[in-house]
């Protein structure tokens, strides 16, 4: 059929691969039972060649970049000679191909006339996979055995026949089997979609050409990536940041340290210097550390690079074993998402020294995990899992976004009215908070609060938050954002809670989370006073902060130019900067 030049055939093939991966993702979204999948989009769809090399990934969660190759490798190494038509594999064990237990990988080999031609893969975050805390997401578990059912690479179907033993074991170990199997059906259905569509492609082009095109697609991604990387100046940079604590060793900060070396058309990312693995469940698999590293670099490359193995080839990621970046048994990891987000902040901090004009200041530190679970009067389980994040750091050319998913996720918020209709919860507030964003020529994004009132008799509330003690940093003179806050009973006793905790919650009790404000970029004294006035009018910044941080004096809603000039000169003098600090973790003390 196609007889013209290869670049054409190739482009068409590339479009069809992406559309298969995206269609798989749409199938998951539309059939999913849990808000975590539909709204938080906490899943990944991927398409691999017959050897398990990643060819295309759906546009879902950047945090899952690079998760699929590891899972495929685990299946290949275990079942090398026993992969048959009609098989479907699954796994969730982070020590054998997985990321953390809630993420169940479903992998289906695809055959054409008896030959294996590809693999379809979907990993979905299930709301509960057993273990000691509803939601299977607790930050304060201390070994993987507490975190739920652990599934090594196994056949869920063998030559079309379901593995009843496994299905029954799952059924008995998870708190909400209907939900679990409903979402699992969505995964199977997505694999089925991929199989049907891909076989059409094979039939059209022929097996040999299709296999070659899949290899070409990874080579292409590599070429595009290397071209983009070459344009970045060579250099070696490093950055340090801290996680508040792990929720078990309260108040003990955890160090993240990364060194990035850019040479020619490659990147080396090394996490040497990062803290030893911790007791609580925020340890990473190496695959998750890689995902963060790939994602951060991807953000600074100005090119449309297909997400596949070719891109990964340009980036070498290493982390010493036994660290929080590359855990060893029996480290727990259910809440490791937090570490991934914080690694993004750390990577961006390093990259800001390499390409200062392309990197934003620290965002909110990633999402806060909120789970509430328990049983109603009839002993029916309820489980609510929510992830929330939403501010961007100030950028070298514009303000940080207010109310937008963190760059490492693309999560939507679950609608308040749906949460209330389906869970024993009332949401009392979900809106921006004043004076929390880091000041800057381009200010950080304004964070919001989210307030939950529990309406069932009793349950367990589990929170995984961060950035209480270590604020989101500002860049090139931009001030840091304000920290996150956890408050129990905000209208009554108003108890400040630690960043991570698990507590019993009773009817009528209220929990309020305030997301951290993002860091600013550039000197606040260079911010257009009209933009400051606008923020004041919109009650994102108070008059006092406008005056103290930005040196802007307002008369009613108007900027008093002269007074502003004077105030700015005064701040400049008090601050005594000889040059703009590259990174600011605390506001300058000018004795205001």
């Amino acid at each position, binding site marked *: 059929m196609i007889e*013209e030049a290869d670049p054409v055939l190739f482009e068409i093939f590339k*479009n069809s691969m992406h559309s298969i991966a995206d269609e798989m993702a749409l199938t998951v979204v539309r059939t999913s039972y849990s*808000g975590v999948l539909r709204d938080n989009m906490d899943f990944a769809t991927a398409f691999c060649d017959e050897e398990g090399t990643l060819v295309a990934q759906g546009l879902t969660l950047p945090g899952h970049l690079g998760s699929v190759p590891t899972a495929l490798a685990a299946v290949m190494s275990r079942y090398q000679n026993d992969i048959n038509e009609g098989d479907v594999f699954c796994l969730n064990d982070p020590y054998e191909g997985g990321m953390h237990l809630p993420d169940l990988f479903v992998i289906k080999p695809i055959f054409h006339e008896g030959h294996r031609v590809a693999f379809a893969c979907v990993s979905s975050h299930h709301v509960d996979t057993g273990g000691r805390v509803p939601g299977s997401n607790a930050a304060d578990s201390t070994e993987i055995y507490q975190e739920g059912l652990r599934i090594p690479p196994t056949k869920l179907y063998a030559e079309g026949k379901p593995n009843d033993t496994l299905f029954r074991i799952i059924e008995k170990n998870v708190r909400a089997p209907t939900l679990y199997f409903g979402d699992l059906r*969505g995964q199977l259905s997505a694999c089925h979609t991929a199989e049907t569509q891909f076989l059409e492609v094979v039939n059209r082009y022929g097996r040999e050409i299709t296999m070659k095109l899949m290899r070409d697609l990874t080579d292409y991604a590599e070429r595009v990536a290397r071209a983009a990387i070459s344009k970045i100046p060579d250099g070696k940079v490093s950055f340090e940041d801290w996680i508040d604590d792990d929720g078990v060793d309260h108040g003990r900060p955890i160090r993240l340290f990364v060194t990035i070396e850019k040479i020619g058309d490659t990147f080396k990312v090394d996490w040497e210097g990062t803290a030893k693995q911790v007791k609580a469940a925020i340890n990473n698999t190496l695959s998750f550390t890689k995902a963060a590293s790939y994602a951060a670099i991807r*953000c600074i490359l100005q090119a449309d690079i297909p997400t596949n193995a070719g891109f990964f080839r340009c980036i070498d990621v290493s982390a010493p074993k036994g660290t929080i970046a590359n855990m060893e048994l029996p480290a727990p990891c259910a809440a490791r998402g937090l570490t991934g987000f914080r690694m993004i902040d750390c990577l961006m901090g390093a990259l800001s020294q390499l390409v200062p004009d*392309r990197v934003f200041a620290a965002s909110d530190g990633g999402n806060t995990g909120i789970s509430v679970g328990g049983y109603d009067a009839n002993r029916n389980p309820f489980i609510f899992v929510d992830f929330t994040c939403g501010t961007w750091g100030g950028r070298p050319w514009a303000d940080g976004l207010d109310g937008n998913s963190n760059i490492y996720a693309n999560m*939507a918020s679950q609608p*308040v009215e749906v949460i209330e209709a389906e869970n024993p919860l009332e949401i009392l507030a979900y*809106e921006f908070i004043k004076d929390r964003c880091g000041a800057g020529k381009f200010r950080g994004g304004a964070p*919001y609060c989210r307030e939950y009132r529990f309406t069932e008799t009793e349950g367990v509330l589990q929170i995984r938050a961060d950035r209480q003690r270590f604020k989101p940093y500002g860049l090139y003179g931009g001030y840091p954002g304000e920290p996150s806050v956890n408050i129990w009973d905000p209208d009554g006793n108003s108890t400040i809670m630690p960043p991570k905790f698990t507590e019993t919650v009773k009817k009528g009790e209220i929990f309020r989370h305030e997301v951290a404000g993002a860091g600013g970029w550039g000197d606040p004294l260079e911010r257009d006073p009209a933009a400051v006035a606008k923020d004041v009018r919109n009650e994102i910044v108070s008059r006092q902060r406008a005056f103290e941080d930005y040196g802007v004096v307002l008369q009613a809603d108007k900027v008093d130019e002269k007074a502003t000039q004077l105030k700015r000169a005064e701040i400049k003098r008090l601050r005594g900067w000889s040059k703009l600090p590259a990174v600011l973790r605390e506001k300058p003390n000018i004795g205001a």
Partner: protein
Amino acid sequence: MDSLRVGVDIGGTFTDIVLWASNGEVIVKKVSSSVDDYARAIINGLDTVFEEYKLTASMVKQVRHGTTVASNAILERKGAKTGLIGSKGFRDVLEIRTLRMPRLYDLAWTKPPALVERFLRVTVDERVNSAGDVVKPLTVKEGERAVRKLIDEKVESIAVCLINSYANPEHEFLLKSVIERLAPDLPFSISAEVLPEIREYERTSTTTINAYVKPIVSEYLETLEAGLIASGINAELLLMQSNGGLTPVETAAELPMNIIESGPAGGVVGARLLAEKAKLGDLITFDMGGTTAKASMVERGEYARADDFEVGGGILAGSRLLTGAGYLLKTQAIDLAEVGAGGGSLISIDSGGALAVGPESAGAFPGPICYDLGGDKPTVTDANLILGYLNPHAIAGGSVKLNFEKTVTAFEQKVAAPLGLTAEQAALGARRVAASNMIRAIKAVSTERGRDPRQYTLCAFGGNGPMFASEMALELGIKKIIIPPAPGVFSAFGLLYADVEHHYSKTLRVLLREVEPELIGNAWKKMESNAADQLKRDGFEPKNQSLSRTASLHYKGQTFELTVPAESGRVDNALLYQLEQSFHSEHELVYGHRASDDEPVELVTVRLIAKGLDANGDQLTFPKYEPNNGETATSRKAYFGQSTGWQEIRVFSRSSLVKPRQGPCIIEEYDATCVVPPGSEAVLNEDGCICLIFNE
């Protein structure tokens, strides 16, 4: 000829006017749009037609209108200064949106600014829970405080959307009465009246959009009506809605959110009628212009409908997975998928050495290289010219001259040489790449919804639709293409064939097996009685009213619904059982699986579509073409691939297709050019359509 029906479709560049006379005669007029006052072009255009064809204004009985006034107001942010009242603790629902962005890894992403800035968003201390119980009553005093604040800010319109008002609207109605009392002349939109459905962001956004465009749409419609009357046209004015139905001017002014995607709907409406009249079966519509290509579907005589869409978001996203690019509007609309590919799309070579087409476009100015208006970047239209598909001298009946030599030179240098290809090889390649981009739009409405495009006929229109139809069909394995008459102005034609339509909905959230059937029955009954009243006001006797029920359901626990038709009549357990079965089947069709029978199904929203049927519908015809048995007028060289090389092919007019013509050949018309590739055959059907059929 004693009565006329007029269809007017306004685009950014042209205003298309179509007149249909009761004796079956059809007149088409294309005039330049008057951007400062769209109504003027309509009035002047009609005057010209009357003069030219010796008609009088009094013959016009009905004017049917598709307009982009409302969507432009949003895209250009020129709507009213709007205030928004929300619940305490929820001031930023409109701005926080769903948090999601349409692009990954893009630090330069910027959210579309909220239509109501924060200082104009106020909240009131009140609370209703999800069961509809008042937890904290709203006082009149509190309501007055909020409304006064907005009045003091001199807003021109007010939107009201409170949390859980879908379950109990009493606080919203209290605010309504306060607004009516304190500011009797101020337009307002209440979410309980606009969209009584669950999900606060969707409802807030929709209500806000309605409030935001209301003053501008009202003013425009008043100007238009006054202009029509001034030129002696005393006719009924109907507006095309995004859902493919017409609505009287009064309801359009009240609920302008329903006419946002008025423009592109017309073509799909025309295609639907065509499918019915010419018995074409199920269609995929493909509407390709200069900058975008849109796909939709007509199935079992109905449009595919979407329950929501993003104004201005379609092209940016590139994938339906990625949302957040535009302004979310939750109203039923014809399900159109759009990609940024058209005749003006730029052809380039990316850093990986692949041939890329779009999404950037040369626009109307400077346009393609061949227009010779200063454009120096190769476009899809230039590729078509090089291949011999476009007339090498001029298009649009000679009114646009083309520069062939300049185009070839530039194309060779910028595209062909770097790829090591000849100009024609590269041009053909670019066409195929453009097609593969546009296929995403077709897949979005077909395979992504579980439909196999090979079982559909492709109905292609728009300025570039006929040019690309065969390429799309080949790529998708579609065997039959229909090119309707006057494909370049087909959207205006569609207006003539639409019915008046009103949509109603109500969120219930009940388990089908546990609910009292009466509860559902009463919800439908109430909507049906409202609908009947509305249609009566619109001038439809009961015999010309058609009311059809649908329901949106999901498996309990799922968060996305599927909408299926429901039986009319008394709601009892049998009817609910039927509904449940339809849902299982639809779920299986769309997603390839169904849950077991004991899995509870939840009914989320009941809906009603009310139609006023066109009494003259049966007489409607398509423009006639005088048969012309003459042989071809011209011929030219064209290129269809290496195996055949350059060959001399014939160029026909549409009317000479009364005899089947074998491809390769070209069909040239005033407003479009159709490519008939090798291995296919083109023939005119009774309704004046070109049928292009691929040989087995």
